[in-house]
């Protein structure tokens, strides 16, 4: 009854009704922006606009090109992580897949090896020689090496998947172990040396452009479209979301959950390999420690995008925005001349905020729909 009386007066607790109503609209708009899929994109653009006047180099054409070239390989890897997070898993081995496939691919196709450096490598003599790897100088060397890298990456993902799906081991444990194993194996193979002398055509993949469009951009976009297509338009995509939401119900509904889980990890390995190809070609070398410090970037960017670590929720397009924001942030911190450690402190704080934000958003969503 009291509420009815209030509705007639022009004031609510002494505040003009109009003001409250206007504010209500503001709150509603704020909520809309907050709940929007594009929130992280808006955030990135605002971040860019605010920072640009203070750090003139930030908006320079050269720097923007730099931002994007940092973005594509990370995006490839994060797209795979997105699918694993959707099935309520996590793939910590991606960084080692990057390192290991980088080494494997480059020792196959390298065209010149310095004997002083590599004579201690276990591959020396029977596999590597002064004139390079077994495929050195052949016309099909690059394509073959790339296929070998992809096969290796998928195989590591497959092993992860089998242990997780068939032996019900926690994904955290399994992928942490394979991270250690393959990371160390990559270092063992080359005795921690970088493999140089990669063919020109391979190097051009990560550095050259096709009519002003970088190859790496094309590759990353194709990979994202593939992942998006699988998630949104195929039966497999529905299965991935279902397994991530509720495994038991999925099994009862006849979903081959084990195969679905294995697929997710294979795809994650595949994506990490594509990332590895881009990184290796950009650096023009096979590097056994490649990617060893980007694990937080991968998971962080994916989570900032809005993909939930509890499974069942996530989109590739969110990850695109998340990676964009993350790369933008790292770049800005770099330009501000902050130390590596300071940058990590800020990155950590941002990831924590993103995770907190995810929880908040879910809660707002739940309360809106509870009514």
């Amino acid at each position, binding site marked *: 009854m009291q509420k009815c009386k209030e509705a007639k007066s022009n004031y609510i607790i002494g505040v003009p009704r109009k003001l409250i109503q206007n504010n209500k609209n503001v709150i509603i708009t704020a909520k809309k922006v907050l709940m929007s899929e594009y929130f992280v994109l808006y955030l990135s653009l605002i971040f860019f606009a605010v920072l640009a006047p203070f750090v003139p180099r930030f908006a320079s054409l050269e720097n923007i090109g730099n931002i994007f070239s940092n973005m594509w390989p990370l995006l490839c890897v994060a797209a795979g992580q997105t699918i694993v997070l959707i099935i309520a898993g996590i793939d910590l081995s991606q960084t080692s897949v990057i390192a290991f496939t980088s080494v494997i691919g480059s020792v196959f196709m390298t065209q010149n090896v310095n004997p002083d450096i590599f004579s201690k490598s276990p591959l020396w003599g029977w596999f590597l020689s002064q004139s390079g790897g077994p495929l050195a100088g052949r016309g099909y060397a690059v394509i073959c090496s790339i296929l070998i890298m992809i096969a290796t990456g998928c195989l590591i993902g497959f092993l992860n998947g089998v242990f997780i799906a068939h032996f019900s081991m926690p994904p955290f444990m399994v992928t942490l172990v394979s991270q250690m194993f393959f990371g160390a194996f990559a270092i063992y193979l080359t005795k921690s040396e970088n493999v140089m002398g990669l063919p020109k055509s391979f190097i051009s993949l990560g550095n050259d452009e096709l009519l002003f469009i970088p190859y790496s951009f094309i590759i990353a976009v194709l990979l994202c479209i593939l992942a998006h297509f699988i998630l949104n338009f195929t039966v497999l995509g529905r299965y991935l979301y279902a397994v991530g939401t509720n495994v038991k119900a999925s099994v*009862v509904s006849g979903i081959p959950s084990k195969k679905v889980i294995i697929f997710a990890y294979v795809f994650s390995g595949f994506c990490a390999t594509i990332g590895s190809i881009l990184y290796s070609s950009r650096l023009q070398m096979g590097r056994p420690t490649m990617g060893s410090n980007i694990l937080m970037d991968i998971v962080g960017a994916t989570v900032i995008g809005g993909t939930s670590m509890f499974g069942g929720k996530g989109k590739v397009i969110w990850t695109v925005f998340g990676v964009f924001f993350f790369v933008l942030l790292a770049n800005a911190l770099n330009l501000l001349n902050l130390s590596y450690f300071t940058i990590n402190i800020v990155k950590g704080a941002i990831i924590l905020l993103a995770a907190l934000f995810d929880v908040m958003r879910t809660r707002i969503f739940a309360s809106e*729909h509870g*009514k």
Partner: protein
Amino acid sequence: MDGNVLELRNITKSFFGIKALNDVNFELKKGCVLGLIGQNGAGKSTLMNIIGGVIQPDAGSMKLYDKPYCPEGPIDAIKNGIAFIHQELNLFTNLSIAENIFINEFPKLSFLPLIDKRLIRKKTKQLLESVNLDVSPDTIVERLSPGERQLVEIAKALSTNANIIIFDEPTTSLTSRETEKLFGLIKKLRAEGHSIIYISHILEDIKELADDIVILRDGEVVCKGCNANLTINNMISFMVGRDMDQMYPEKKSNPRQDVVLELENVSQKGIVANISLKLRKGEILGIFGLMGSGRTELARIIFGLDEFEEGTIRVNGKTIDKMKPEEAIKNKIAFVTENRREEGLLMSSTIADNISLVSLDKFSKYIFKFIDSKYMHECIKQIGDALKIKCHSYLASQAKSLSGGNQQKVVIGKWLMLEPQIFIVDEPTRGIDVGAKYEVYSILNELAFQGSSILVISSEVEELIGICDRILVMSRGEITGEFARHQFDKEQIIRAAFRQNVETAV
């Protein structure tokens, strides 16, 4: 038996504009057992949560020993001597009995921050003696049977000097022996002057235990009286608000001769033994059994979720060597599990995602299994409309936003999409209200009429009598009775479930 311990006056509570409780009045006398009954959703849990301080009423007042009582939280209720024994036991299975009992307030070794283990062991021993449980206080709760855990809960309640003890469906997971023991204890507590509120669906138990009875329907007290003046039939009519006959739709199934599902001597050690049954086309076959009789396990075996060692399963005369859910679905077998939240639904997904889940292959084309979403959404809409699922939108509403009855319809809809030939439904009406129950029965009835075969598993005899063509009774993993529709007799069926009618078993 003098004076009221607890009085409730005009208690009203609404959720989202819907009245869960309306003007509820009753009083609990000292040294009495008050039986509280009502259908699911009648407001029993809300009422108990108000007494327990978990939620606050919108209007009305409570009095404890003639003093106003308005608890602000569960701890307030405990301090005032009110203890709750929940349906799902709230014990820490990884801790010992003694630790569980004193979890809220461990006695310390004088000023040291250490637990006085000797003291809690001694006190626990006394408490366990008073509930007639003969185990060591150091036993880990995990090792106890459900019945023994119940006794630990009661001991815990006694440790807080509770005068009012509320039991919420305490016997659901107990064996008959344990139930008997529990009743003995409740009677002993009553004699010692404790007041008890006993909530149960098992009216016979209420009849045996209660002094007074309060019946709730749709949030209102529809009957308040002395146990002696009420028969079980009276209670049912009060609870339902209509006669039993109208609870079930008129049967129109006509079972045919062809056998669609046949089990021959299916056995799995310790779970089921020598199960043979035949399910005919268009038949509704009920399986009745008490908790632990193997009824759910049998359903899981038929659907391929669990394995079996011996015997054969034939679907349409074809032997299936290794049953798996995928294989079962290929053979058009549907399985509505008893546990909707955990095994039936993707709670945070939309209704459309849930309904389409099993039959996605039907809507996919090309090698990539591309989904034809337009056609799929049409089919989802058809099924949703046919089942009258109440929601905002099939494409946007999450399954968890629905009521229990509508959630069950979503699960049924999911399987209807497959156009199943055999429907296995386990406790199809658990946790849903009377109106929705009727709808579920009608759907099953209609399906059977159209030629599907239905296997209904239930722990409610009335339900099976109401809808089945034939009932099989299971006990300890074996079939102990078979009844055709004209032989249906509640007492006989229950006797079979207790293995007291071996002579009538077929």
